[in-house]
């Protein structure tokens, strides 16, 4: 494994059963994700980018291959160890935010800390500090349905970062936002999520934000066809 690599994926193959037939979604992918960079995984629908990111963050078992996250072979861990590894090392930002509708923004942002066993009061305080950084501390006591899409995404970012993970995984973070909101969220994400000791992977097909990437991996039919700082000309 490369010394700078946050994630080292080798020979990743993933098959899915579809009735009688087996569909190979990933065809032996080898790649490294480095700390201190914002890495985009882009590709058409069905190219395998979500499958790849799921495998790299330990929520989907590969059919073959090995994934090391910060030097830990995550698929050699027991189920409970893997869950705890995710809790301690990975922050997630989902396309649909998946905030809990009946608890306020601060409590939503505090979920990883509460899951780690921190009391609700201190967890909320820490979450509110982060919401302040994200400029929505005034919305801390509001329920998700009282927030705009952009505000909900900021709460989701706070939830992904509140426990100071070393890897942040974002799935289509701008898909549900208009152009200006999406841009603001990505600027913010770059500001708060990218750090020398933290890797950030973003799955997206939103070409409006490609310029914010440090590195772009292009997936086509389950294979990495481009790995560089810019998008290739033909995309």
């Amino acid at each position: 494994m490369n010394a700078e690599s946050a994630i080292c994926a080798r020979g990743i193959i993933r098959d899915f059963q579809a009735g009688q037939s087996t569909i190979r979604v990933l065809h032996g992918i080898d790649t490294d994700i480095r700390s201190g960079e914002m890495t985009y995984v882009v590709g058409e629908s069905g190219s395998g980018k979500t499958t790849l990111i799921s495998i790299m963050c330990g929520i989907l078992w590969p059919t073959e291959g090995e994934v090391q996250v910060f030097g830990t072979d995550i698929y050699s861990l027991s189920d409970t160890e893997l869950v705890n590894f995710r809790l301690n090392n990975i922050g997630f930002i989902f396309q649909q935010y998946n905030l809990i509708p009946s608890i306020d923004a601060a409590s939503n942002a505090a979920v990883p800390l509460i899951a780690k066993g921190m009391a609700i009061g201190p967890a909320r305080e820490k979450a509110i500090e982060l919401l302040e950084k994200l400029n929505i501390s005034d919305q801390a006591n509001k329920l998700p349905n009282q927030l705009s899409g952009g505000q909900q995404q900021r709460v989701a970012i706070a939830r992904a970062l509140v426990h100071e993970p070393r890897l942040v995984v974002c799935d289509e973070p701008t898909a549900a936002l208009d152009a200006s909101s999406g841009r603001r969220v990505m600027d913010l994400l770059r500001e708060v999520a990218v750090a020398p000791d933290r890797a950030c992977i973003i799955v997206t097909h939103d070409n409006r934000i490609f310029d914010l990437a440090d590195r772009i991996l292009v997936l086509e039919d389950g294979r990495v066809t481009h790995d560089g700082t810019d998008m290739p000309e033909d995309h």
Partner: protein
Amino acid sequence: MLWIAIRMLTGDAQKFYGLLFGIAFSTLLITQQLTIFVNLIERGASGVFNAPEAEVWVMDPVSRTTDVNYAMPSTALDEVRSVPGVEWAVPHLRAVASVRTGTGDLEGVAIIGVDDATLIGMPENMVSETKSVLSQPDSVVIDDGGVFNLFENGEDPIGQRLELNDQRAVIRGVADSIPSFTSQVVLYTKYSQALNYVPGTRNRLTFVLAGVTEGETAAGVADRIEEQTGLKAETREEFADAGVDFIVENTGIPTNFGITVVLGFVVGVAIVGLTFSLFIRDNIKQFGALKAIGVTNSKIVGMVSAQAALVGAVGYALGVIGTVTFIWAFSGNPFFKGFYIPWQIPLISLAAVVIILAITGWIALRSVLNTEPASVFR
């Protein structure tokens, strides 16, 4: 995480109240129906409980309950009195008769003839007047439930004259008694007077009520009476049980109440199961996100269990309160007189609630546990 689980549940008011309704309704149905059932069948023993002094009931061997009896020769009384261990023995007559009311209607009544001298065989307490009124001519004492049946218009029963099998009877008191299974009007009178009211047959002594001397047990004396007289003798408890068993064995009541209780359980499973499943389905993305973030399956089980426990505790409490309110609200109705909730019934309904929640919670939980964390990226 339990706090989050509870907030997830209570935040969805529609489903939360739906779940509470399901559990409360099931608890109410099960507790209320079982309460009525138990109190109703216990009335099979009301005849025994209304004669509290009797420690041993002696009867013809074919007699089964206070109401299903066969009369004995009057010599049976002396035979019982001669058995060692019997401190006292008195005659007791139970028969049915027709009474013509003031409005001209016929009403079936039970005539109970109690010992002339001691009045043993009467209920312990009176609602109005005293037991001694039976010493007056043609006196009868009516049970308080019977007052409602015979005097629906709220008339004062005291002093009312009745035509009882062509004989005159005057109500001179009201007894505080436990209603019979059929809620039939009961008229207490002296044994000698009762013989005048019921049609003449050769034998009219239906029971001998006996007390036991100090140092003897009722069961031991009952055995001795059976041995020496050839009659059937049962302790108060045995005869009370026989009355209850007779109703259980000879009526469709256990089946009917049983069906209602089962329906309560099924309705609970259906309402709670459906609502719980809808709640989980609506929150499956959130549960998936929690699993992806790093919440273990055991914590998820704890969360769903906490949700089920909250619904169960509140719903169960509401159901039991509903039953208590029902019993209290109807306590003035003579049909419900003396109704109580035996302590075993809330425990039975609690067990039913636990089973309902275990079944529905397990079904709901299965879908959460089967949710792959990766599904949140789809």
